[in-house]
């Protein structure tokens, strides 16, 4: 507590000085609205094809756009057209998707175009961008998304010599503003691909002109423009003056109006003139800058949690007075400690797995490492998507040492006798080591010996991919809001080196998965998802961890800052209230 006060005193001291200078600067610039955001890791560059991590993805999506996007306010998450003029027409029994493009969408002005003037986006550009994802020379990080799905594209990847002029059956440009995709098999999640940065539209001229340096020369159609990327510690964007007319949504989920998320309804986007994204890897640095008002928003640092939040009551008075607002984020993710089902010990030994799952004290982990706010997972699918059952309590997911011991002896290892030492691989950092130590201690209570081994991410991939690990810790974040994205983690065809690193192989589960993965969104599919949810909870293919919950903070002058799991391209909705900023900054 003392520390915090001290920091606050310091920041007040330094801010009174800062704010006077910055407000005059703001006035001089005619009340320019500047958004100050932070990114917590190095940004790898601006090639949509390589935007596999959240950080690069967010930056790419300020400059580039896709055919579709998620509705900013509506929940559950819902796709809406972005570059497309309306949602596509689906035909051929779910195998073909025809998109109409908006007319008059212009690329940013750039030296790669004749006279440096951006030209209009056409269906050819969309076709080019998708082909580029399949080009083996590009090694797009998003290839998995469309692999084996678009008719003829896989063949082109293998035998096409990266010749973009070759016809591909599944990608047909009908006219300047119409494109038709044909799938080789039903894939109801196909449309989500068009909201992900991998598929965002790039201009062939830019790729050709800049070659390998394309990664540093963003040329898109998006609401913001930035110059050459120079890997510095900040990226500055300015408003795209030629941005087509796009307006702020006028409807959202219930409660949005009360929170003020609808006040900007109908206004032309983007709302701010400039975005400054600072790269700050250390939480402490971000925190001090947030307190000084140099950043508009950030997550609450772990060590500060008790200072900022009063249990059960929300923000502490001190922060309320500063005009700070909190927002809760329930992650579309799941953490887990997987068994390697190809290891003799765990193969078909459901009772051993259940026993170990029952011995893990997740409440303790939650309290010690997640401030007690994360949601202990009862099964694989996270809350807020179809297929998750609210209020479901798993039979084997909650601490019960007595039952754990019973099941362990039924499994043939009374008091752990006869069990070998079990190696647990995890990605090393101090916190995950401590979590592994908690697991080790919990398992020792029923006589199971665990040997935690902390390794780097590449090493973890190696032991998992080569099936050498006995157990390993991982987390999965949703690529798109569909339970399929989680359920596929246990599908036997996805075994290592695929996403099913635990090599779980269960014909009954597989049959359900195959059936569900062909189904369009429907009550029947949700019912099947829920059946699988319960099935996973009972079979314990993994020891489940958490659906992680976090809290973000934002200053009072930062408007329209609604939590979304799919952050791509949302900066255009953000707004800065300069009057409020001038006033609130004096209170910091």
């Amino acid at each position, binding site marked *: 507590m003392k*520390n915090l006060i*001290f*920091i606050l005193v*310091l920041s007040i001291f330094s801010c009174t000085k800062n704010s006077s200078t910055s407000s005059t600067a703001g006035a001089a610039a005619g009340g320019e609205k500047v958004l100050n955001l932070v990114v917590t890791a*190095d940004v*790898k*560059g601006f*090639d949509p094809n*390589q935007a*596999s991590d959240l950080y690069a993805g967010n930056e790419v999506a300020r400059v580039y756009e896709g055919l579709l996007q998620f509705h900013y306010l509506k929940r559950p998450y819902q796709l809406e057209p972005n570059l497309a003029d309306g949602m596509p027409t689906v035909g051929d029994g779910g195998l073909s998707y025809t998109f109409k493009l908006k007319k008059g969408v212009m690329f940013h002005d750039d030296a790669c175009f004749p006279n440096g003037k951006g030209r209009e986006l056409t269906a050819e550009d969309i076709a080019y961008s998708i082909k580029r994802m399949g080009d*083996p*020379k590009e*090694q797009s*990080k998003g*290839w*998995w*998304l469309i*692999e084996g799905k678009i008719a003829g594209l896989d063949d082109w990847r293998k035998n096409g010599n990266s010749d973009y002029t070759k016809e591909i059956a599944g990608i047909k440009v009908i006219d300047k503003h119409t494109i038709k995709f044909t799938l080789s098999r039903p894939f109801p999640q196909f449309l989500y691909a068009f909201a992900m940065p991998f598929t965002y539209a790039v201009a062939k001229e830019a790729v050709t002109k800049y070659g*390998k340096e394309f*990664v*540093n020369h963003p040329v898109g159609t998006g609401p913001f423009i930035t110059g050459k990327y*120079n*890997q*510095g*510690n900040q990226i500055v964007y300015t408003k795209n003056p030629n941005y087509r007319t796009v307006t702020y949504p006028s409807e959202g989920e219930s409660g949005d109006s009360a929170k003020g998320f609808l006040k900007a309804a109908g206004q032309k986007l983007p709302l701010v003139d400039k975005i400054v994204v600072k*790269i*700050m*890897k*250390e939480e*402490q*640095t971000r925190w*001090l*800058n947030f307190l000084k008002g140099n950043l508009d928003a950030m997550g609450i640092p772990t060590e500060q949690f008790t200072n900022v939040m009063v249990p059960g009551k929300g923000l502490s008075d001190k922060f309320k007075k500063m005009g700070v607002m909190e927002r809760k984020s329930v992650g579309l993710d799941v953490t887990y400690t997987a068994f390697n089902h190809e290891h003799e010990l765990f193969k078909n030994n459901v009772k051993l797995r259940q026993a170990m799952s029952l011995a893990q004290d997740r409440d303790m982990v939650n309290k010690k490492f997640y401030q007690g706010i994360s949601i202990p997972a009862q099964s694989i699918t996270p809350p807020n998507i179809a297929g998750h059952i609210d209020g479901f309590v798993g039979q084997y997911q909650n601490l019960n040492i007595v039952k754990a011991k019973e099941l362990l002896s039924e499994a043939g290892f009374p008091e752990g006798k006869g069990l070998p030492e079990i190696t647990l691989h995890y990605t090393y950092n101090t916190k995950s080591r401590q979590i592994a130590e908690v697991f080790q201690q919990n398992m020792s209570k029923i006589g199971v010996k665990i040997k935690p081994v902390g390794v*780097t*991410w*590449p*090493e973890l*991939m*190696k032991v998992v*991919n080569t099936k050498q690990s006995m157990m390993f810790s991982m987390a*999965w974040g949703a690529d798109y809001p569909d339970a399929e994205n989680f359920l596929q983690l246990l599908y036997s065809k996805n075994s290592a*080196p*695929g*996403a099913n690193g635990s090599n779980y192989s269960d014909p009954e589960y597989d049959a359900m998965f195959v059936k569900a993965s062909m189904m369009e969104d429907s009550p029947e599919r949700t019912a099947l998802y829920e059946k699988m949810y319960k099935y996973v909870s009972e079979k314990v293919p993994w020891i489940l961890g958490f659906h992680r919950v976090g809290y973000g903070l934002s200053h009072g002058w930062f408007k329209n800052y609604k939590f979304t799991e799919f952050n791509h391209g949302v900066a255009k909705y953000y707004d800065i209230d300069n009057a409020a900023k001038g006033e609130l900054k004096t209170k910091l």
Partner: protein
Amino acid sequence: MLQYSIRRLLYIIPVLLGVCFIVFFLFNVVATDPAAQQLGKHATASSIVELRKELGLDRSYFVQYLDIVKSAFTFDFGRSWSSHQKISDILMNKAGASLSLTIPAFIISMFLGISLSLFVAFYRGRLIDYATMLICIAMMSISYLVYIIVFQYVLAYEWGLFEVSGYESGFPAFIPYVALPILISVVTSLGPDIRFFRTIMLDEIYQDYVRTARAKGLSEKVILFKHVLRNALVPIITYIIIQLPFLILGALLLESFFDIPGLGGELLRALNSSDFPVIKAFTVLTAIAYMVFSLVTDIFYALADPRIKLQ
């Protein structure tokens, strides 16, 4: 002299080939599969094979080794596997932050080390000498990590005397951020430096010429500053030069604790993500720098001290 220098310069070639071999062996032969790492959670067996081909990892080991050798001699290390940025650009971008920390730290600790060791050499054998030496040994007996953790917590976090962490590029914006790391760096290097310099000075003090000077009636101060220091400078400067190449690498731990975006942090990142081209560039460049600087040291030694013959 010239002949010797040329010969030593040529000697870099076999050593560099050896360095390349070790790097090659560690990272191309026995290390983890970078393709699987890059593809991450969506890897499939076929995509791994394809990416390995794209990265050139399917070629024979000999060709892969030659690749490293080629890049070592042309200084063209290609692009990072993880960010697809040119490695020369990455190094250029990160070097500034590293040097803004290591150079001042180095200069300050050398200055302090030499002055303090002169001081204790002057009072050699007295209580103050013993006390200083004991403090030096005690300071050397505390873990580097403990210094970082305690200084960062107490001086920056509790007392607010310094920035806790972070960095801003450009002079003088970076000064508040590097002040504490520099202090830690100086404090930790003072112990070994003073001990080393003192030994050198005592070595000189017991030389015959000092006895002669003393016999001639020169004051102890004159002897110390004029004769001893001048002669001791030769090994001291040697010691300094040989440390220079490692300044470029930065202070890995300091950079990671204080979040300074330097080369040390970049190296850690590369190691943690199997970014082999970056790792190779780092290793080879430091090795070259190390060899060049040791050559410089030897030549300097020979120039400064005519008793040493180079052969």
